[in-house]
């Protein structure tokens, strides 16, 4: 069993659900507060969804400078597994832990739907429970989830197998190349726009396809050492 920290910012919404998902996956959730300076020795960190700092300025732009984010960035560079979901993905891009940016949905509408995805990369601790090519359905809800990056960056991501998940059937927000999630070169940092934490319990949400994101595969030992 690992201890997985969930970092709460003012305006985070899905931190409680993320901690619940961690529990469902058999790990111990640890609540972390953005103003602290202590990661409490957790084995991995989740940046949850929501609207940190009211999405003021740009989504994730102010959270990036939260005290605890300094530790998260330093930890991530040492191989600490970090998963950013939705607003967490935006924070990871603003922190430059992941390339590109997330901008307003192409059709200007907030989208909320059960979304089919294809897991493209199982080489991360967050996706090791899945097989590459496996399809899952999890909720998606965002207003600024359109992933953009330069063509060179997109080619690099594709070429290095760093697209972690892709939208199937519908591209809900106009993301380039149907990208729903990416990872860093090392594989420990993953950003994902849809919400697997809302698909972990039968009877609530579209199913339990999301649990795998929180089980932390064997990859974790090799990364954390």
């Amino acid at each position, binding site marked *: 069993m690992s201890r997985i920290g969930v970092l709460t910012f003012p305006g985070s919404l899905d931190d409680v659900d993320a901690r619940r998902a961690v529990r469902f996956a058999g790990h111990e959730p640890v609540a972390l507060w953005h103003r602290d300076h202590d990661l409490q020795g957790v084995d991995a960190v989740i940046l949850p969804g929501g609207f940190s700092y009211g999405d003021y*300025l*740009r989504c994730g*732009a*102010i959270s990036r*400078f939260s005290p605890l984010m300094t530790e998260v960035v330093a930890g991530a560079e040492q191989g600490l597994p970090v998963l950013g979901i939705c607003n967490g993905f935006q924070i990871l*891009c*603003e922190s430059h832990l992941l*390339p*590109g*940016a997330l*901008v*307003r*949905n*192409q*059709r*200007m509408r907030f989208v909320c739907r059960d979304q089919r995805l294809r897991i493209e990369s199982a080489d991360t601790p967050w996706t090791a429970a899945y097989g590459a090519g496996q399809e899952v359905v999890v909720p998606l809800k965002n207003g600024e989830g*359109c992933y*953009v*990056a330069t063509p060179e960056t997109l080619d690099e991501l594709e070429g290095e197998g760093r697209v972690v998940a892709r939208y199937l059937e519908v591209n809900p927000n*106009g993301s380039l190349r149907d990208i729903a999630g990416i990872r860093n070169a090392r594989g420990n940092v993953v950003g994902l726009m849809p919400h697997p934490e809302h698909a972990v319990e039968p009877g609530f949400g579209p199913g339990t396809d999301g649990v795998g994101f929180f089980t932390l595969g064997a990859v974790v030992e090799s990364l954390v050492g």
Partner: protein
Amino acid sequence: MARVVVDVMLKPEILDPQGKAVQGALPRLGVEGVSDVRQGKRFELEVDGEVTEERLAQLHHIAETLLSNPVIEDFEVHVS
């Protein structure tokens, strides 16, 4: 006291759906011939004392790291 203005605009290659929506409203108001609208942000910073080179460099840094995201936006700093 001096005022430093930072203008932030989406890079030309980034789709601006807000600007498009504004442009779409123009014909409904009887305005024709506006081929594009881009929406940006303007920040007005009231700065104590003189704006020295050092101060300007600091604000330039803030414009680059906090006020704009260089992946999707360009910015300009003006002292008025």
